[in-house]
């Protein structure tokens, strides 16, 4: 499997990035994870059709090529960071590349809660008709106390969390296969739906 793993922050230091880096190494036998940084994307604006920033098009292309997407989100003020929301707005406004794409949500936080509320928001956001991702159900991976979670070589040292992650990732690979099969047998492909901003400005 080829997955695109999106680091949900623009901060230089991030345990969500460390989590994805760990997953990249740890699961390399099962899947190839390409880490993607959103920090260089411009902040979302309503670009004209022919003037979509290159970085956005590059991201869309990567998503389209991947078998699935993994998003690691921190929690800022009970929600996902603006910079991650901005990246999703770009996708939703331009390519809608996440449509029907299998997505796994993970997240890390310095506190005990492990970005639980941000992840709940992210599920709702990805479930909006313009994004319409296939989010893996019942697969909450919350990494609390993340600053102490990795050793010097970047290995996740919480054994219970590691076991949980192993199982979730195994399921996600399976989920990706099942969704791919499901889509191949789907009768109606919802591609041509026009959304509000495509007809009117909000």
């Amino acid at each position, binding site marked *: 499997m080829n997955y695109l793993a999106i680091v949900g922050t*623009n*901060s*230089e*230091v991030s345990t969500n990035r460390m989590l994805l880096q760990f997953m990249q190494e740890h699961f390399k036998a099962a899947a190839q994870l390409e880490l993607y940084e959103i*920090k260089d994307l411009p*902040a*979302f*604006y*309503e670009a004209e059709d022919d003037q979509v920033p290159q970085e956005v098009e590059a991201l869309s292309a990567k998503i389209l090529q991947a078998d699935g997407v993994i998003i690691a989100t921190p929690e*800022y*003020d*009970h*929600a*996902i*960071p*603006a*910079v991650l*929301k*901005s990246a*999703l*707005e770009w996708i*939703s406004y331009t390519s809608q590349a996440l449509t029907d794409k299998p997505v796994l949500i993970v997240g890390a936080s310095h506190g005990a809660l492990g970005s639980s*509320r941000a992840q709940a*928001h992210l599920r*709702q*956001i*990805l*479930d*909006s008709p*313009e*994004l319409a991702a296939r989010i893996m159900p019942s697969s909450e991976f919350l990494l609390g106390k993340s600053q*102490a979670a*990795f*050793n*010097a*070589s970047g*290995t996740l*040292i919480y054994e219970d969390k590691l076991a949980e992650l192993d199982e979730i990732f195994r399921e996600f690979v399976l989920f990706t296969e099942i969704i791919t099969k499901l889509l191949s047998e789907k009768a109606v492909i919802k591609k041509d739906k026009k959304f*509000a*901003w495509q*007809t*009117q*400005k*909000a």
Partner: protein
Amino acid sequence: MKFTAIIGTTSPKSYNRTLLQFMQAHFSDKAQIELLEINEVPMFNQDTPSNSPQLLEINDKIIASDGVIIATPEYNHSIPSSLKSLLEWLSFERHPLDGKPVMILGASIDAQGSSRAQLHLRQILDAPGVNAHVMPGYEFLLGNAHKAFDDKDQLNSEGTIDFLEICFLRFMRFAKISNQLNEEEDFSFKPGTYEVSSLGHGGALPLKVSFSKKKIESINIDTSGETEGLADVVFVRIPDKIIEGQTLNVDVLSGASETSNAVIDGVAKAVKLAGVNPDILKRRPKPASSLNRGDEEYTCDVVVIGGGGAGLSAAATVLQEGKSAIILEKYPAVGGNTIRTGGPINAADPEWQRSFQENPGERHTIEALLNTDENDIHQEYLADFKALKNEFATYQKHFGNDKGYLFDSPLLHRMQTYFGGKRTDLKGNNIYGQYDLVKILTDRALESVKWLEEIGVEYNKDIVFAPVGALWRRGHKPVKKYGTAFILALSKYIADMSGTIITDSPAKEFLIEDGEIKGVIATGVNGQTITIHAKAVVLASGGFGANTKMLKQYNTYWSNIADDVKTTNSYAMTGDGILLGQSVGAGLTGMGFTQMMPVADPNTGELFSGLQVPPENFVIVNKQGKRFINEFAGRDVLTKAVLAEGGLFYLIADDEIKKTAANTSQEKIDRQVEEGTLFRADTLEQLAVKVGMDPEVLVDTINKYNSYVEAGEDPEFHKDTFSLKVEKAPFYATPRQPAVHHTMGGLKIDTATRVLDENNQPIKNLYAAGEVAGGIHAGNRLGGNALADIFTFGRIAGKTAIEEMN
């Protein structure tokens, strides 16, 4: 009443804006509503300060208002990223929404009327960092917004207007009552002194806080457990601000938030012991000095950018000449990289060095150097090379086979700096130190040592040694802790001479008048503009070791610079001065060459974590557990080998080897093992598992190594000096990774430190000294030469600036 209304989108056409404009006019007899745009607020990033002008304006207007109305569209079931970004800024360093009454409403083109975005917004506004008082109920959703307004942008449904009025009147009442919660409760302290303990960076932080009935009178902190540097600033700044404003609402220092919070928490504990709810003091406004955002203007003779060793010595020289100087430092404290120094300053001082005996092998070192083929020496250096030969011949003749004194001369220093700096990069470019600059460095370093002594630096003259990578024993060691000794003496001198140091204020651009540099414009600690008019500007802002992007952009020497490469430098070293110089056409030299310190902490870039033992004792292995190099290899040989192995490697030690570590204590070791930054196990096999190696491989490596120690010979990597075997449990593995240590390249300067443009013409009124300038160390800087550089060229910069303005 006075409200601010935030338009929750950056879109130029928005029904949310129309709705707020309607409200502004419709309710003008009841309240004053000011609309705020968010289109120029940058994307939130926790690594940058909150100082965008529009953001500061929004912040101030919210604070001055009785309540806030937020109109949000709905993007993907949530609020727009632009609105979220604003709220993140408003919950980061500034918290204007704390306790502020807020009314939420929203418009959308579909039937939803932003219903789901509004729910998200409520949850976001309720987060502790935002802490707004959101009006419950009265949900105003404007669906089908494109049909809701007439051609004069008036709401066209009476029912909708009626409901909006009900919601707004309710909000006015809610705001009034909610604001009463913000009025301070009456309180009085139980007078006395209370002792508390808070958790600082280095462990327990004991504080003594004294109260009178109405005031916090004093805060005393026992700082013995903390490291010096930025923490020292925290221990003065935070208590000063708390007492000034009688508030616990004080800004933490960037780069030292943990220590800052420890002080604030400690005082809060004491407040509680004195019988008062600390929340009352946390809700008070920030001290007046933190709110002062009035622009500032100064005039002086010389403005120096950067408060490290180079900048402070430039400013001190200016003051000595009877002129005025201002130092702009972007960090809360002066010191720069200099304060992090762990070694002495190089200067050939033959008279003094004569009082020490030569060491075995030292004459061989010089002979080897003098045996260099003259064809391999650049023309400019040839005369000096020959002169050095004569000097040494005289020495040899004098001592013959007897033990002599420690030989040295500026010529030897010069030739060693030259040979030490000669390198070839990946593209085959050769580089070596520019003769005229190296000559000044080596001829005048001693003058710098003596000048510092006059300024107040005391040296320990009983010891002479070579710091790592110095090649020769000519280090002058201060009595006090290395970097601190220089910085303390210089800052005290500058204060005594009435020089001005402005901290927390990064220089942003030059002040240019009639095409000439006439000063600097900086951003102050509270976001204000600081304009400094000056006759000359000295750039002394350091290198770019902490700017990975720039390192990668220019690198031509290392096969690879990782995205997450660490640095031993202060995080302030982001190449600001180089960019400033480029903005006025300065030329650059040697930018592709940087020095890496191979044995740095992979997480922090620190040099002194883990177990640091002499090279004869440790065993270097790669991630697989195999040796790959002679442990005695020099800095850049080791770094190259390590990069080829993927970057990360381990220093293996046992219980006996551990005892030879000079940098640590059992307590520190235990803490690092617990934190997972140092690994310990009872067997080599278990140790291998802990760091992800194949146990068989590591055991095999160590068995072989031990046999080499016994034989006194290493057929694999030719290590020739051994001391201890690795045999006594517990065993240790210290993870290491090369970190950027010094950036040799920088602005082109001449011998008088004038900054040169691409055509080698001086740029008027601009000088540069220290790591910001290039040309001296070329491909590799000798240990101990950076200090010689900054104090020598720093002084020259001050002097030239004065001479040229007269």
